[in-house]
């Protein structure tokens, strides 16, 4: 039997099985949304496929119900661990009134939920990164020992908001984890046209805190690196930049055609490193999973996605005039 790598980083058998469940759930929700999109039922999909291990590994290192997250649009795996459900995601995909992210106002992938500690994000990339720093600053003033996670792609690591926020967090030694999911492409533009440095993690030196690059296809490795970063942040050691090296298995979005800028051979090669079968294989090697258990898990996830889809499809749309609500707080004067 292979060494239980997960035990070495402090993960129990139950936890790694749970991690696999969340990875699978994220993948299956995502795949269903593509089907619904191609069937003309949902207008837009933006994927997490290929990034589930990085996302779930990272989220498991955080304290759900206590820590805050400012995720980017691919972080389906992260928000599921933080308490969103398949139904929540499907309600967003169908833009229904009950969608807890935005009541059907935002495109899917714009995660939000105050009670889950998920700060609402927008579409201009990287704007969420200074928000994470602000939450950490506010928490420090309130003397609450939370850690704030924010994620973004490698393309976003070029934005001014990334640099400004990382620098601010470095100067003030704030408990923020800058989690870059380097999936090799900013829509069509490859890494080599985005960055001149060897890795995104190298950028951390400019802000005076550690930068770590990790194989994002391995949830245990990601968890290990994240756990160190979280401990450093919570104990007053300041921020960390973590770069999870992954590959975006789908086109940028349902409106993109990646055949125009990358070869099928390249994508097929990347699929050989797909984190889901890799992790399933590890779980089998350590005796936590077998064909029967895996089939049962697939069935459970399938059922969850089916029920969520059915519920969301039948749920009511928001009332048209509700578009006027929530511009300002209800108060005197205005």
């Amino acid at each position, binding site marked *: 039997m292979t060494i239980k790598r997960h035990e070495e980083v402090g993960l129990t058998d139950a936890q790694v099985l749970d991690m696999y469940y969340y990875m699978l759930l994220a993948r299956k929700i995502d795949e269903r949304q593509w089907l619904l999109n191609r069937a003309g039922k949902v207008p837009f999909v933006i994927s997490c496929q290929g990034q589930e291990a990085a996302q779930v590994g990272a989220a498991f290192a955080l304290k759900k119900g206590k820590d805050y997250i*400012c995720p980017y649009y691919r972080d389906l795996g992260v928000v599921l661990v933080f308490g969103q459900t398949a139904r929540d995601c499907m309600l967003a995909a169908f833009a229904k009134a009950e*969608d807890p992210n935005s009541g059907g106002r935002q495109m899917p992938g714009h995660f939000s939920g105050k009670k889950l500690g998920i700060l609402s994000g927008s579409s*201009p990339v990287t704007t969420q990164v200074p*928000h994470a*720093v*602000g939450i950490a*600053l506010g928490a420090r003033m309130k003397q609450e020992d939370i850690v704030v996670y924010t994620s973004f792609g490698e393309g976003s690591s070029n934005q001014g908001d990334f640099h400004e926020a990382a620098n601010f967090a470095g100067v003030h030694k704030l408990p923020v984890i800058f989690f870059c999911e380097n999936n090799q492409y900013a829509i069509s533009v490859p890494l080599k046209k985005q960055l001149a440095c060897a890795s995104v993690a190298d950028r951390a030196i400019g802000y005076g805190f550690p930068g770590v690059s990790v194989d994002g296809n391995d949830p245990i490795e990601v968890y290990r690196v994240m756990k160190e970063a979280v401990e450093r942040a919570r104990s007053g050691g300041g921020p960390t930049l973590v770069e999870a090296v992954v590959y975006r298995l789908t086109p940028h979005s349902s409106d993109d055609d990646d055949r125009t800028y990358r070869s099928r051979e390249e994508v097929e090669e990347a699929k050989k490193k797909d984190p889901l079968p890799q992790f399933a294989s590890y779980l089998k090697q350590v005796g936590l999973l077998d064909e029967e258990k895996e089939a049962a898990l697939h069935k459970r996830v399938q059922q969850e996605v089916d029920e969520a889809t059915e519920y969301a499809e039948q749920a009511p749309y928001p009332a048209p005039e509700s578009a006027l609500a929530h*511009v300002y707080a209800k108060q005197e*004067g205005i």
Partner: protein
Amino acid sequence: MAVLSYIEAINLAMREEMRRDPRVFVLGEDVGVRGGVFRATMGLIEEFGEARVIDTPLAESAIVGVGIGAAAYGMRPIAEIQFADFILPAVNQIVSEAAKLRYRSNGDWNCPITIRAPFGGGVHGALYHSQSVEAMFTNVPGLKVVVPATPYDAKGLLKAAIRDEDPVLFFEHKRCYRLIKGEVPEDDYTVPIGVADVKREGTDLTVISYGLTLHFCLQAAEKLAEEGISAHVLDLRTLYPLDKEAIVQAAAKTGKVLIVHEDNKEGGVGGEVAAIIAEHCLFDLDAPIRRLCGPDIPAMPFSPPLEKFFMLNPDKVLEAMRELAHF
């Protein structure tokens, strides 16, 4: 009652709010030990310490963006942009984030941030230390845009902005800072956002303004009274959302309207004020609506004659008022 300058009233408002509410804090460039380049935050770091009066790195988008995160978390940040001209790197944070956080989360999150910025010219500030940028923000639902003209309003409106549950852009005319003085009560009062104020009652013509030019209008009205012409002067105070009722009431009262602002004319706030009047009380008017504004050039030049040419003054306003009164 104490007579304070406009900037002293602003300083007092922040001091009082910071004493009242531990969630209130200040962040910006040079706001700490220097007390702000205009000294608006003078003495705050001594009283409240560097944890609540934060000298930030020189990066405007982070000043606002970090403030937004803190506000969402439940703090009451006052972010200072050193000059309104330098707010542009933070516009994405203000317009895409602060203004839309409540709306896009269907009322789940909100963003109670106050963003202070000195604007306007007449201080030899040239192109990039003199601009009026308010019109860039006055068609952004979700934001409130406030411009006080008097020390009384400055204190009351700033306290209201800090307590507001939504983001407020608070533009302070930098020429007013030490030029304008007035009585400011020492007690805890607020001036409601979204409510204009009649600063002078009159019957022959209505002048609508805000900021520094409001004072030019009042001075011109004083002189015009000697000629037997009575001017009604409305101070907008909040530029977004506008107090439509007060505008219509003031316009209908005299039937002649002059709108005065330092910002350039085309696309300025005056156009919206004129449209409100045209929509609601066109038939109460006895003359076409007039606008007296800065010229439509990119910004205010440095050379004194050029700056003087750009700036309005009481004489220019007097002439426009007299002409309209005789229409």
